């Protein structure tokens, strides 16, 4: 996935993204960090066109995905390939655990029970949740703990076999144990898909990502290997941010 000259904003407001260029490497975890209001959530939401779901929101430029500009694709088709997990776990409240995981497949026309059952198990295993829920797949998804609900949402996103998984501060509402599970899970799934995570937690970015993007006031200040960014950043603004001198 590659972003070229991406500008985005909200109705009547100043531009939030001011011409962002970025290459997201396949089958790696890329973390986006930056202070509040820097545009990191807007950027990640542009990647699967969730940004446009906000009335009056604008986005132009290019998001190259599979050789095409994602901004010109059907958003529904794009979101099948580019899944998203949000800050707060949001299982469908009226659905069971299994139904939650299968929801995307059902919407895509898959109704074969054995196919669905297989996909549910596979996705729950990939999301490291299977062992905890295999005996209560028909229980409501909202009955799980916060950390389990978030892994359920990841399983739901994985069920449609996306090429890219976007996570917008997925652990900010979770305790350290649940956070640790999600981080372990990300390190596992990156073998098979591309992960982009927005996080306020710089240690989390350092732990889970191979590449880090530092955003500031709608611009990408620095992009590089995480291990380099956290030991020897190139830009002084990056150094100041990751050492807590501002933000």
């Amino acid at each position: 996935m590659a972003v070229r000259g991406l500008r985005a904003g909200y109705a009547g407001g100043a531009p939030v993204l001011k011409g962002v260029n970025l290459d997201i490497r396949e089958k790696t975890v890329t973390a986006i960090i930056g202070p509040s209001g820097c545009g990191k959530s807007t950027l990640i939401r542009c990647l699967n066109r969730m940004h446009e779901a906000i009335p009056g929101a604008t986005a132009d430029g290019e998001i190259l995905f599979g050789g095409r500009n994602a901004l010109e694709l059907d958003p529904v088709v794009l979101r099948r390939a580019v899944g998203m997990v949000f800050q707060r776990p949001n299982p469908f409240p009226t659905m069971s655990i299994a139904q939650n995981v299968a929801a995307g497949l059902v919407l895509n026309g898959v109704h074969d029970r054995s196919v669905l059952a297989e996909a549910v198990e596979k996705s729950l295993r990939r999301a490291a949740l299977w062992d905890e829920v295999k005996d209560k797949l028909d229980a409501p998804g909202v009955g799980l703990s916060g950390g389990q609900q978030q892994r359920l949402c990841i399983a739901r996103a994985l069920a449609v076999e996306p090429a890219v998984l976007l996570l917008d501060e997925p652990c900010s509402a979770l305790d350290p144990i649940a956070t640790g599970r999600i981080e372990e899970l990300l390190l596992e799934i990156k073998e098979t898909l591309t992960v982009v995570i927005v996080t306020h937690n710089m240690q989390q970015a350092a732990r889970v990502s191979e590449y880090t993007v530092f955003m500031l006031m709608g611009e990408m200040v620095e992009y590089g290997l995480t291990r380099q960014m956290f030991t020897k950043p190139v830009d002084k603004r990056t150094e100041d941010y990751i050492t807590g001198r501002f933000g």
Partner: protein
Amino acid sequence: MKRHFDGDLEDLRGRLLRMGSLCEEMVHYAVKVVVERDESYVGDVQAWERQVNAMHVEIDDVALRLIALHQPAAGDLRLIAAAIKINSDLERVGDQAVNIAETGVYLCKEPKIKLGDIPRMVEVAAGMLKDSLDAFARGDVALARDVIKRDDEEDRLKSQTFNELVHLMQRDASAIQRGMDIILIARNLERIADHATNVAEDVIFMVLGKDIRHTAGEIEAA
């Protein structure tokens, strides 16, 4: 924005510099035992070594606490990593000073012997130690590079001293014990210069993020 953490890092830096200046004093006093043949200095050197050992433990403790509590990154992390390594080098400098002083005590009781290039070795090693610590205090990469370059001079002087003392011992068997002691002192001084070189390399890492250890001839590129 001034952080509380900056105060903690300053404290770490200050502790290391105090330890460094104590090590410098130890080297000066240890050498006096040998050059001035005055064993009265050995007591101070031994007492300071106990202080240096205590500081060694304290500084490691402070550094580990800062890592555990603050999860430092970038320049902060490099400073703490350099401080841990410099701490070990300084503690070893203290040990070498004690070795010199204690060998000197034996020599004080024996007839005088030629010191070879020991006085010049002292000058070079003590200068390197002082400048490496100044480079650390100021984050001065140019001075750190200069320290590293001077290590070759110390190695050359050590070889010269070895040769001179070996010839002396070949001619005079009664000088063998004393000659061996001077060779040991030359070795101690050369090790002090090596530790100063390590400190200088750590300063370059701390400031530039470049690890130049084991890259002879690439100092200029750093």
